[in-house]
């Protein structure tokens, strides 16, 4: 695993020292957050819980994408984050509405 960390550091050598470690911490934290979302997704117990878990996973992914943009020093992932922010909620809304009244488009 140490080799993988050094490779990771190598890929983020453009960063300042604090930022680099913060980014590593951030990435790890968001991945753990994703894993926690998955835990809730599996546990349930209700469909709402699962939808909520997925919704949270979307938000965490957004943050992860932004962080990766910093790590890789590229802005090309900005659009993906933008799209999640703008339209990612629609999936949640539709599922919730489905739970609520079945028909999502009346």
């Amino acid at each position, binding site marked *: 695993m140490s080799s993988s960390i050094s490779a990771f550091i190598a890929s983020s050598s453009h960063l300042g020292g604090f930022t680099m470690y913060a980014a590593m911490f951030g990435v790890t934290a*968001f991945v753990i957050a994703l894993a926690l979302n998955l835990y*809730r997704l599996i546990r349930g117990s209700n469909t*709402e819980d699962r939808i909520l878990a997925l*919704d949270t996973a979307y*938000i965490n992914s957004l943050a992860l994408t932004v962080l990766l943009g910093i790590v890789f020093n590229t802005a090309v992932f900005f659009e993906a984050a933008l799209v999640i922010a703008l339209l990612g909620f629609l999936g949640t809304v539709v599922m919730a509405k489905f739970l609520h009244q079945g028909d999502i488009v009346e």
Partner: protein
Amino acid sequence: MMPIWLDVLIAGFIVIGAVFALIGSYGLAKLGDFVKRIHGPTKASTLGVGAVLMASMLYFSFTTKSPSVHELLIVLFLFLTAPVSAHMLMRAARLRLRESIPRLDESENRGTADERR
């Protein structure tokens, strides 16, 4: 090379954001009831993401030598849309609870919810 203050600032935002997001997701995983769980992620995540986006803004404003404001858009969109998700989920979840919720002012002013119908 990045000035140290900026480095620290960016790092700080990232750490704050990550911590809040993590706590939010932890809450989602830990808490025992849907109506409790939903409080965790819908907010902690938004602040978490907000902080990370601040970091991104600062970072890219520095690297491209021009202010990077489009991260603000993400924040804006998130603040517009996140309440809707939570709102809709709560609406759905309330169906499962199937309980009437008494209104504080009703007992004093207008009677019970049942009378209202």
